[in-house]
């Protein structure tokens, strides 16, 4: 049981932190910023810009 908990705790903590970050970022409109960049051809990425 202890072994199981030792395995699961850091993972669970990181998952909770990541979920909080995602929600916080989305609330600030960062998902929309990701979308705005991704729907246009990234000229730097393809080697033009």
């Amino acid at each position, binding site marked *: 049981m202890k072994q199981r908990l030792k395995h699961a705790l850091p993972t669970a903590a990181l998952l909770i932190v*990541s979920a909080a*970050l995602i929600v916080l970022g989305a609330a600030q409109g*960062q998902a929309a*910023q*990701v979308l705005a*960049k991704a729907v246009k051809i990234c000229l730097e*990425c393809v*080697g033009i810009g």
Partner: protein
Amino acid sequence: MAVQGAAALVQNANFKGFFAGKIYEGNLKSVCVPGLNCYSCPGAVGSCPIGSLQNALSANKFKFPYYVLGLLIFFGALLGRLVCGFLCPFGLLQDLLHKIPFPKKIKSFKGDKLLRKLKYAVLIVTVIILPLFVKLTPVFCKYLCPSGTASGLLLALGDNTLFKLFGSRFAWKACVLGMIVLLSVVIYRPFCKYLCPLGAFYAPFNKVAAVRIAVDADKCVSCGKCADACNMCVNPSQTPNHTECIRCGDCIHACPTKALRCTWPGVGNAAGSTVPRTPDHP
């Protein structure tokens, strides 16, 4: 390889884009995919996490990139470098290239260990520090990313007018891509080992991710077959959750005593009668 192929197809499901030379413009692109898959690939239906991170860091008005970082930590905490082994389309490309017969495949060489640290420098310098100071410039995407170069080529195949726009920067990036392609035939996953900033980000998560590898010390006979099978030059019987392990599973298949196994929290560790005794699970 079937899982890798399926993952690459799912992440690049905008098939008509390949023929039209156009990228997908739907809302799914507000979510980053776990692997290195340029959002300018005509098939891409999600966003590249490394491109999105650089874009957020190099924005004129800086805001801490909670969203992209949250997604990256989520993938890392859940899967670690299993993303590299199974979900990254560029990893699949390198795997396929490595299957091409070559007289002398190189598994390790002098300086290999040191060179593997380079990917951490690429992450810190070109993905984090330089975009923070050189505004509106995703340095890794602009000068190094081979996924973007391949995307450019795929776009140009669908829309020939793009070929006229390719200049010296594209020539440089094409050289980088060409080197990685050639090296992949001889060395297993050279980009993952030495350059990939995404692999560098996920690497530390291997020790704490939900997916891990455990060694049953009672079954292990220290025959070394797992280490021989590992193309990333890890010794899974000693360090099953090494930062270089991409969870390909070759070691598990190679183990004659079934001492290695993939574990999830609550599953695997306690499923058997023995408890794994490894440096990670003392």
